[in-house]
């Protein structure tokens, strides 16, 4: 016979456990329904096609993200340009912003002085294009960074070339970059030692509509007789920046409290990373991050820089995760396992992180490549670094991410795919040639798509990725939209 006191005790325990369980579930970052609807879908579709999908984070459901909405003349809004981006960084933070490359640091004022000098020299010499060999770009230093930014603020095209570029490689960086037209004008800016002795804490930003137009970046890949060139316009950059910044939820956006560390992809073949790295750099400038750092040598450990936000190529991410204790399958310690289990229920534990103040890791992965298990289920790395992870999937002809996993997406999916993620806010998508399972190939259109040119022996070839009459560009990857509005590349 059970006594009354025993029953009361049992009931009390039951209630306590229920309360504790509910408290745990109340700690979820977002309600599960948030992740079950990540796109807005057109109500109709054409035969053999899916409906058009767009991000559901847009201000208006049918208006793609196009610009930074910079206010001018009191009430007008404009999309912005790269001149604005540098002006934002140079003129905010009271000149206290910093930029670092590996172990060298310059104040924003010191770099602004050099950017201004370089841009003046570029303008004086009427340079129309700055050509940089890919290998040189991969070892980006301050002189080259100043030249790139100097070109950006003038809307001069920066052209990054792999393979056999017709550029003489002499005297290292300074000579290389500037190419055919160039004399030694960079010495104007870098004549002396690279010390922060000369600073300029103001960057005038008079709006010129001409800065909104033109190609700001070209990427050329040469292999044997074939050359592929992708040309990105200023509007592509501005849209990619806006879409990337707005992908982060309110209260988790990049800000002047952040230290953004971008690890350059040093893979000799990885031209796709160029656009993504430049967009992240520009995002850091636009958000006026307290410090923007670039790491491109083996000596500098990005974690030792104490970043709040890191941008990593997938290979580096895997190395970093594995060397810091992420093991596949299963966790290495009960604490890691517990955090991982809670993550799968939407609860992120950030207390007691040994990697603090790290809060966000961007992982860059080309869309067509297979997914590594540690990327596919990033919860182990999330629980290891106690940081959110956004996996961005890119395509060469599109600037910035095409798909990006949601900031709060810790779901463990019972599917294995090549890529998946929420849609870029600057692009809209549909699938064509769909079968009865609604699987088809991707078509996309929007504001971050560059212009592709293929050449063979110097002759321009017909472009298979040209958009049709409806302006949609094909991405020849078999895919399917999930019930959650996420695009899965099969």
């Amino acid at each position, binding site marked *: 016979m*059970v006594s009354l006191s025993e029953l009361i005790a*049992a009931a009390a325990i039951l209630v306590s456990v229920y309360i504790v369980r509910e408290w745990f579930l109340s700690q979820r970052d977002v309600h599960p329904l948030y992740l079950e609807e990540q796109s807005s879908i057109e*109500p*109709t579709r054409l035969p053999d096609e899916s409906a058009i999908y767009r991000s559901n984070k847009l201000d208006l459901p049918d208006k793609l993200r196009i610009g930074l909405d910079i206010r001018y003349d009191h009430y007008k809004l404009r999309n912005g340009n790269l001149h604005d981006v540098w002006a934002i960084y140079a003129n905010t933070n009271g000149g206290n912003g910093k930029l670092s490359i590996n172990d060298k640091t310059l104040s924003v004022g010191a770099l602004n002085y050099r950017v201004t000098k370089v841009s003046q020299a570029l303008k004086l010499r009427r340079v129309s294009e700055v050509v940089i060999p890919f290998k040189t770009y991969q070892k980006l230093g301050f002189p080259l960074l100043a030249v790139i930014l100097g070109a950006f603020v003038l809307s001069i095209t920066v052209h990054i070339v792999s393979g056999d570029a017709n550029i003489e490689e002499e005297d290292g960086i300074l000579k290389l970059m500037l190419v055919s037209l160039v004399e030694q004008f960079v010495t104007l800016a870098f004549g002396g030692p690279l010390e922060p002795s000369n600073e300029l804490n103001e960057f005038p930003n008079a709006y010129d509509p001409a800065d909104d137009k033109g190609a700001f970046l070209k990427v050329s890949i040469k292999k044997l007789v074939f050359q592929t060139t992708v040309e990105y316009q200023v509007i592509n950059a501005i849209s990619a920046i806006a879409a990337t910044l707005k992908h982060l939820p309110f209260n988790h956006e990049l800000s002047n409290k952040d230290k953004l560390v971008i690890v350059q992809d040093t893979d000799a073949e990885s031209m796709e990373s160029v656009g993504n790295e430049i967009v992240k750099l520009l995002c850091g400038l636009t958000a006026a991050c307290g410090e923007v750092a670039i790491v491109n040598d083996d000596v500098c450990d990005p974690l030792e820089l104490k970043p709040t936000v890191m941008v990593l190529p997938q290979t580096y991410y895997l190395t970093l995760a594995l060397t810091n204790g992420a093991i596949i399958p299963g966790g290495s310690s009960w604490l890691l396992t517990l955090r991982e289990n809670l993550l799968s229920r939407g609860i992120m534990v950030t207390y007691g992180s040994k990697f603090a103040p790290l809060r966000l890791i961007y992982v860059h992965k080309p869309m067509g490549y297979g997914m590594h298990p540690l990327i596919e289920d990033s919860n182990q790395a999330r629980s290891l670094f106690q940081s959110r992870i956004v996996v961005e999937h890119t395509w060469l002809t599109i600037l910035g991410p095409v798909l990006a996993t949601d900031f709060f997406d810790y779901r*463990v999916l019972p*599917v294995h795919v090549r890529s998946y993620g929420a849609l870029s806010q600057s692009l809209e998508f549909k699938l064509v040639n769909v079968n009865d399972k609604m699987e088809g190939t991707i078509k996309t259109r929007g504001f971050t798509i560059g212009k592709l040119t293929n050449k063979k022996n110097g002759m321009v070839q017909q472009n298979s990725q040209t958009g049709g009459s409806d302006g949609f560009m094909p991405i020849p990857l078999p895919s399917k939209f999930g019930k959650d509005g996420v695009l*899965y590349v099969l």
Partner: protein
Amino acid sequence: MISLNTALIILVFLFFIKSMVGVATTENPLEQAESDPLVIEGKFTPKTLARYNGIDNPRIFIAVKKRVFDVTQGATFYGPGGPYENFAGRDASRGLALNSFELSCLTSIDEPIDTLTGLTKEELESLDSWEQHFDNKYKVVGTLHENNADSSEVVPPPQPQSKKDA
């Protein structure tokens, strides 16, 4: 012997462990829905259009000058209880031209499509401005054809509702 109380505690504890420990896998998002709930863009007849009235189907379509607009976004106006609810799922051309919401301005769905005869120049201009308004605001999802049009050309019957429709 274990008392009932102890057994209960153990059971509750196990339930808690089971519900909070172990990786929780999400439902497969790629599982096929029962059917695709989206309307295929195409040709409507007065009868097939009538289903899209916000009641029989959550979407609201109306026809203006033989073009069918998806006005679901404006459900406050065109949906049930709205001032223009009579137009939902119907050819609203004459009503818009006359600026009248009365049922008498609508042609029965069994009858041929209204040819708009008898409207004055001002009324036709009014209709044009309504059409322009719809063009600017709503998406065209198809065209309106007579009930006796080739059955292969008309929109298929409505599909079961998805969760998004709810």
